């Protein structure tokens, strides 16, 4: 299998048109990409056809990791990447494409397919493939060659605020990853303006409500379904570590934190998540004001009309 070349991050992109998957929703970190002329033409052609309403199958592509498959050695072997990305991840992409063709999911974004298929917990058949495609894209981008170390800036400040210290955060993250029974994922996520129960919106949002949380999820589930903004993930399905670590999941988790995590990616995701939360807050305030105005206008009609009779029980 050809080892994909790492994308150049230096020169300006030759086009601003990105495939649906090239910009992983507002939550992904924007990566300057260099597209070949051929890729640009294919994309423009596809978009053109869609606009004119041709019968196009909107297929998802298998996005390669932003580094060569051997560049995470010796912490994560090339062989693991070849199977994990080349077989498992590819399989999810191919299977989802087969599942959505000709259905109403065809043409929807990956995130939308995930939310629709999650179906409030009563998973539809497309959920596993859609979730796993997104999760694996996110996972590759959570790592980098020469990763590890410590975060800095706003991210470190928030980690220290919400976990006490970076070391305590690491302890909690490792514990979550180690105790996800069966297959699944552990996440660092940004949670904003949501009450603890049932995804309800906090009527009195404050900065304290916006916080970092560690969560774990089974199989293909991810924090998008809880309306959190994922910042970092580790895959704890056995196929992610078995070739390199066999049953020693805790060792894999330690190596991931110490040698692989891309704190740059996590930081830029945090900025996007904060911006998204602020935008939503403004939107919710605007909506609330609109409703209040409507109420004020219709107030006389809405008012409770007193009953003439005396209902009092006092004689």
């Amino acid at each position, binding site marked *: 299998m050809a080892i994909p070349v790492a994308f150049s991050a230096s020169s300006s992109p030759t086009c601003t048109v990105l495939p649906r998957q090239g910009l992983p929703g507002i939550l992904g970190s924007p990566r300057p990409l260099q597209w070949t002329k051929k890729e640009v033409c294919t994309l423009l052609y596809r978009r053109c056809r869609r606009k004119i309403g041709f019968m196009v199958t909107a297929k998802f592509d298998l996005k390669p990791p932003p580094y060569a498959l051997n560049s995470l050695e010796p912490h994560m072997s090339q062989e693991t990447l070849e199977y994990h990305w080349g077989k498992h991840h590819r399989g999810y992409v191919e299977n989802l494409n087969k599942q959505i063709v000709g259905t109403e999911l065809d043409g929807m974004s990956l995130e939308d397919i995930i939310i629709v298929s999650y179906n409030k917990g009563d998973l539809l058949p497309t959920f596993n493939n859609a979730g796993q495609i997104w999760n694996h894209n996110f996972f590759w981008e959570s790592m980098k060659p020469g990763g590890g170390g410590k975060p800095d800036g706003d991210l470190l400040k928030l980690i220290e605020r919400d976990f006490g210290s970076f070391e305590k955060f690491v302890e909690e993250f490792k514990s979550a990853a180690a105790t996800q029974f069966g297959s699944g994922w552990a996440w660092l996520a940004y949670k904003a303006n949501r009450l603890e129960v049932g995804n309800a919106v906090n009527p009195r949002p404050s900065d304290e409500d916006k916080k970092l949380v560690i969560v774990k999820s089974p199989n293909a589930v991810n924090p998008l379904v809880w309306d959190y903004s994922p910042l970092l993930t580790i895959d704890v399905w*056995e196929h992610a570590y078995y070739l390199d670590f066999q049953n020693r999941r805790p060792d894999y988790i330690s190596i991931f934190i110490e040698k692989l995590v891309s704190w740059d990616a996590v930081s830029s995701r945090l900025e996007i998540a904060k911006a998204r939360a602020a935008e939503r807050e403004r939107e919710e305030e605007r909506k609330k004001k609109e409703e209040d105005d409507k109420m004020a206008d219709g107030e006389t009609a809405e008012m409770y009309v007193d009953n003439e009779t005396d209902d009092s029980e006092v004689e």
Partner: protein
Amino acid sequence: MALRRVSKKSIELGLWHSHGLVREFSTFSLPNLPYDYWALEPVIMTEIMKLHHQQHHQSYVTNYNNALVRLEHALTMADSPTIVRLQSAIKFNGGGHINHSIFWKNLSPVKELGGEPPKPSLGSAIDRQYGSLDALIQKVNAEGAALQGSGWVWLALDKERKQLSVETTADQDPLVTEGSALVPLIGIDVWEHAYYLQYRDVKSNYLKNIWKVINWKYASEIYEKECP
């Protein structure tokens, strides 16, 4: 030869009860395999058998015992939050111990009993319900392949209705979680640790090949006990 060593530990708990009760608390042990680690080659490689038995199953046993000791203490202290909190660890690790104990007995080297078709009573029940042994195998493999994440696929006997069925359970949930009357005849582990080192991502090859080492004699004995 399967030898189950069960050690009995008497834990004298310092007591509330006026009777001065001494509780007998049996901890669980890793059962020996009925064959050598290399005996299921080339269907299941030695390294997988070693890791699967000595690491995975052992760790379920260890964690199961730990959870039970903590449960015993919590019961004595009438500590309900802890009693409830321990349930998931007990279910997961206890289930892992139950399931793997059955699994080792479900397998046998090819030169012994592995792969030999089931005896008359189970064999004809399978033919009656599924048409043929092959048809049953296809169904089990399809269910096992379709299972997403970790879990088990079972040939089950409903001992009340005297009917066979193919079931799946997630993670380490034992078969009984699918129905209290269900008795496991054959269980196939489809966690990735059961096959990944050898079969990689091609679970279907593992499922195709494992029938060469399935011990139908054991399954038949269980069946005949429930359906004499």
